[in-house]
């Protein structure tokens, strides 16, 4: 509320000045570069390849170096990882992994499972795109067939585990997926959902 003439005039000049400055700022952005990254098709390389190395995308398991210690499954606060181990019927001394499921639809990508892994078998990748029609297909089954279990890896002291390059496994896994794949047989039927 203007009370004096000076206030009255001051209010007008303030408005003019600040509008002047504000308009010049917005105009200057017409000359600057928009920061938009035109995902997914107008980028120089795949967005997944532009992400930093530590990016916590889909989890990937290299079963070749998995020791079956269950540390990841225990670290997970929301039980995303389901591992089943068994004795190899052919060789009772050799223990095998018969199931290694990661429910990526439930995963909150916190990274707690990666830290206790002794060999780096489980790791986050930079992949994040996987659209599927049935959400159950986001359960990545790293042991696809329980009849063909994977033997435990025995780490060698003073030697790094020979892990596959990060991301290569999950990319191969995703490439093998069909987005419109039907709900897998093992999944319990959800009520009122299109099984398409």
């Amino acid at each position, binding site marked *: *509320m*203007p009370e004096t003439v000076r206030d009255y005039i001051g*209010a*007008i000049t303030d408005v003019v000045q600040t*509008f*002047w*400055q*504000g*308009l*010049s*700022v*917005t*105009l*200057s*952005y*017409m*000359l*600057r*570069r*928009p*920061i*938009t*990254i*035109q995902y997914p098709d*107008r*980028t*120089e390389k795949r967005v997944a390849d*532009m992400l930093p190395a530590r990016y916590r995308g889909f989890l990937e398991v290299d079963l070749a170096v998995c020791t079956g210690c269950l540390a990841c499954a225990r670290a997970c606060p929301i039980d995303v990882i389901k591992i089943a181990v068994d004795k190899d019927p052919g060789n009772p001394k050799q223990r095998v992994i018969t199931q290694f499921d990661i429910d990526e639809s439930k995963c909150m990508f916190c990274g707690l499972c990666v830290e206790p892994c002794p060999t780096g078998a489980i790791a986050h990748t930079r992949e994040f795109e996987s659209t599927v029609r049935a959400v159950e297909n986001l359960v990545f089954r790293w042991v696809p067939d329980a009849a063909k279990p994977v033997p435990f890896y025995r780490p060698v002291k003073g030697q790094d585990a020979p892990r596959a390059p990060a991301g290569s496994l999950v990319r191969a896994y995703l490439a093998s997926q069909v987005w419109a794949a039907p709900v897998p047989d093992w999944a319990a039927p959800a009520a009122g959902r299109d099984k398409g």
Partner: protein
Amino acid sequence: MKITTALDSTSLTTRYPKTALATTLFFMLALPFLLYVVLLLMLPFNRPEALDAVAQRLGWDLGHSPYRDTWYGVILVVEATTVSLYTAVFAGVTTWVERRIAGRMQSRIGPNRPGVFGFMSWVADAVKMLFKEDLIPAEADHLLFRAAPYFSMVGLTLPFVVLPFGESVVVADLNVGVFYLTATSAFIVVGILVSGWASNSKWALFGAVRGAAQVVSYEIPAGIAIMVPVLMAGTLSMQGIIRAQGGWPWQWFACQNPAAFVAFFITVTASLAEGNRTPFDLPEAESELVAGYHAEYSGFRIALFLMVEWANMWIMGALAVTLFLGGWQIPGVSVEMINQTRGTDVFPTWLWFGWQFVSLVVFAVKTWLLVILFIWLRWTLPRVRVDQMMALCWKYLVPGAFACFIFTLFWVMVPAPVHLVSGVVLSLGAALLLVKFALRTYKNIAQVKGARVDLTNW
């Protein structure tokens, strides 16, 4: 990181298929051009006498035919349709322009996928809105709810009757033109009130009440400020006011008279408020009233409301251009020169049509610049509060407009050379301000570390 952009090496033709390019170019250039040309060609037949003369040449005796009025009516209907189509196309194109400008101002890109540079996005939007379900709240007053957008549409289209497009391109040059324009645009607020009441929603009611208070208040400063050019021209006719000005900036009313310079800003502010544009978008106020008076609308009806809102910008811009910025006057070409090229024939010469088209383009460019200013303001300023909106009107604009009015009463008695001096001084001053503004804009970029002029990424 480096991003491939539309402007990088690849040309438009490789980037877009030829059909997309052709369609976009048609919509972008041919459509408005087509509308303009139709309007232009209808001109000579704008009065029954001209119709008679043309019919005579064709060997008809229309003057005594009972269908003379019918023919004249058909011509008027075609003209009216053309103008209405023009409003629709303008509203659509403006949404695209607004979204692109807003995008750049916000460090975004804006719609750039449908059509070349995303131009077809307005067509896509229109189609989308037409196909959406048209919901009417169960408790709403059904008939009024349906009728409300049409009230606004009436308020939008009626002013176009007197809005000039070019030297002779006007549907009807009423001798009470300006007065008529302010009167008919009030229908828009009737639409707002009816929609707010009929929706039976508290948000909509709030929006409607705000809208009514706002429009009724701002009609007063707008009305008084409009009197300034009316006084200077000595006529209420829109064309008459433009004819009283000239093509060069120092011949514009805004520069000829310091009071008119102020009145120009008052008119623009008041018309922003009457058109419910930010900073006066209180009736819809997204962050307060969700969507205000059209909160309950969807589909085709909201498309009508939005069309009114955007097309109304043309009226606001054209009004200001007509009254203060020299209208369609071509610099260096006087009205007499244009009239001399007309010839004595009923059907004017092509040269005359050429001049008409130039004047039409001059008017359109000026109006577009103002429309872009409105868009620019919208994406810069916050929204005012209801009491501030009222205070601005009654404490600043009304006294200001009145002072301009009184000043002009004396100014018209001042000899003409003073007007010229004022015109030169004020237009030079305005040019200086523009230069200063450009420097300020450049400084904004220079002052921020990491920012630089870069026009890629479209």
